[in-house]
């Protein structure tokens, strides 16, 4: 009977072990880098009236977290919390953001949040981070 035996070189096995051991750190770093790019876009696209306002401090990133339902690793950009508006009134930031993003019967919409998620740019940033964190092991 003919036999064929193949042995993977040690360095390849070590590379695979390294990726397996660090995959949470690698993918977590990637989604965080993507979210930071989106957050930066959000901050640059906000309506002019937001600049210099305390609402700018309400544009947050979540921590990197896992969702058991799909085994996903996530990091989100959100607008949360309260701020004092120019009249000194404590105002919920998501309410203001919602009115700008989707408008109302009396207020013309100024979408800025959805526009901040540019797929190509975010993918590029994530791949760059992947290369950095994996030491080039996951490069094509």
């Amino acid at each position, binding site marked *: 009977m003919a036999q064929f035996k193949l042995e993977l070189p040690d360095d390849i096995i070590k590379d695979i072990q390294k990726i397996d051991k660090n995959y949470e750190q690698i993918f977590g770093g990637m989604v965080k880098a993507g979210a930071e790019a989106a957050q930066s876009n959000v901050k640059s696209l906000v309506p002019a009236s937001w600049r210099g306002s305390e609402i700018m401090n309400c544009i947050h990133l979540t921590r990197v977290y896992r969702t058991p339902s799909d085994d996903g690793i996530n990091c989100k950009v959100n607008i949360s919390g309260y701020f004092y508006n120019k009249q000194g009134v404590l105002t919920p930031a998501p309410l203001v953001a919602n009115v700008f993003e989707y408008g109302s019967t009396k207020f013309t*919409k100024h979408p800025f949040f959805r*526009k901040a998620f540019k797929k190509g740019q975010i993918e590029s940033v994530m791949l760059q981070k992947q290369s950095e964190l994996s030491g080039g092991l996951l490069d094509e």
Partner: protein
Amino acid sequence: MNELIEQTLNDFMVPVSFLYYDGNAPAYVTYQHTDSDSVLAADDSIINYVDYYDFDVFSKGNFFPIIEALKERLTAAGFMWQPSRSSADIYEKETKYYHKTLCFAIERSN
């Protein structure tokens, strides 16, 4: 593109208007282009791109039948509903209108 939308929603169940509605109907829909994004490029040129349109449903009553009818019409005309770009349910206390933004995308060639 607006012509396609107008034709698609020509005899829709409630008035449909571009950007702004200046009537008194208890329910109406406004639409507007909000964003574009390239999806395919070659030789430093954009070959295909996606246009995003917001359809804002305003209603003093139950807006779910309007939403379902809108989705059906637009999907049949080649639009794709974008759940992640659509809004939550909103109620405007001042005007007593319920409001929901539905975002649809359509792929175009340059």
